């Protein structure tokens, strides 16, 4: 990150004496509460659990007394639900098969959205999806579902044979099948998990960079104290920008999951 390096270099130059500015490293994502190392219970795990409880409570509460004339809460809840049901599941999978995937897709969307938004929501201020384990877990669910659906619908042989688009000359079928197979079974799930992780990780790093640089400038001379003002403004802008990215990434993840399922349920030509 050249900007980070430049900022770090600038700060280091400014303080021949005293402590220098340390740019945030990926270590800021490792927040163990209990234990050490790979098996530690981390803050992200705690907040991930809280997100499940919170979403369950809110949704059960808002849907328990569902009425024809809804309360404001029920109305908002239904709008949110319809966004995932119609805007993602039905539009991607088609009106014939989409209903049984709505619970999965809606759950994914709501859970990923809240866990992303934790990145800008006090008191958490850390996106739980910025830890690679969370995107991997979400992706594993999607992976099992779309392959399971495809195999149970077409049989293992039919599913694997259906990876190649029909109507191709024979000599090219082999290489294309290899390409499709690796894409379906390895690259797609990999990119699905990595794009969510990468977006959340990088966004959080940027916010922490601007906030910590601004805070550091405050401890320096008057010129740097003035510099901290635009730095904090940038931090605020990044928080707003991250809010948008967090929503979009939850949306894109669910949309891609729906499109993979759509590919698995699609009838052969």
């Amino acid at each position, binding site marked *: 990150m050249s900007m980070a390096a430049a900022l770090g270099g600038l700060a280091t130059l400014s303080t021949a004496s005293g402590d220098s500015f340390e740019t945030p490293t990926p270590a800021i994502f490792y927040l163990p509460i209990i234990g050490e190392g790979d098996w530690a219970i981390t803050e992200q795990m705690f907040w991930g659990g809280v997100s499940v409880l919170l979403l369950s409570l809110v949704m059960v509460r808002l849907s328990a007394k569902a009425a024809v004339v809804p309360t404001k809460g029920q109305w908002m809840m239904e709008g949110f639900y319809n966004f995932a049901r*119609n805007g993602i599941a039905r539009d*991607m999978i088609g009106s014939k098969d989409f209903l049984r995937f709505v619970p999965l897709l809606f759950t994914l969307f709501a859970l990923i959205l809240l866990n992303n938004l934790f990145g800008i929501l006090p008191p958490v201020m850390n996106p739980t999806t910025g830890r690679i384990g969370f995107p991997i877990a979400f992706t594993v669910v999607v992976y099992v579902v779309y392959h399971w659906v495809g195999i149970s619908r077409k049989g293992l042989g039919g599913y694997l044979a259906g990876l190649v688009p029909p109507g191709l000359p024979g000599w090219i079928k082999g290489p*294309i099948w290899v390409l499709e197979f690796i*894409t379906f079974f390895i690259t*797609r799930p990999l*990119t699905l998990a990595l794009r969510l992780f990468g977006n959340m990780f990088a966004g959080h790093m940027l916010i922490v960079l601007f906030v910590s640089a601004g805070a550091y400038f405050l401890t320096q001379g008057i010129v740097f104290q003035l510099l901290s003002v635009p730095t904090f403004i940038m931090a605020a802008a990044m928080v707003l920008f991250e809010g948008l990215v967090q929503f979009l990434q939850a*949306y894109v993840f669910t949309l*891609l999951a729906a499109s993979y399922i759509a590919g698995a349920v699609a009838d052969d030509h």
Partner: protein
Amino acid sequence: MSERHLSDAEHRQGPSEFVSADAMGATAVAYLVTGPMVFGGLGLLADHLLGIRGLVVLGILGGMALSVYTIWLRYGMTGTDPQGSDESRADTTHEETL
């Protein structure tokens, strides 16, 4: 609360164009990464086993060509409205919709 009772037509606008493009990009990138990697890898293996050089380059380029061809094959020549109606989506495969 008339907003609750949007007609079906209003619900059938499809996912946001911006987000669909992003998703399409992810799908294309998956192919573009896979082709050169797999066939470049096979070329490397063949080079190693046969004790020659150059097949790795052929594999990378061939894999890239194959990726581009597959993307074009699946997504490039549908000729249908990408924001088509729900009915048309229902009987098309994901190849045409994303």
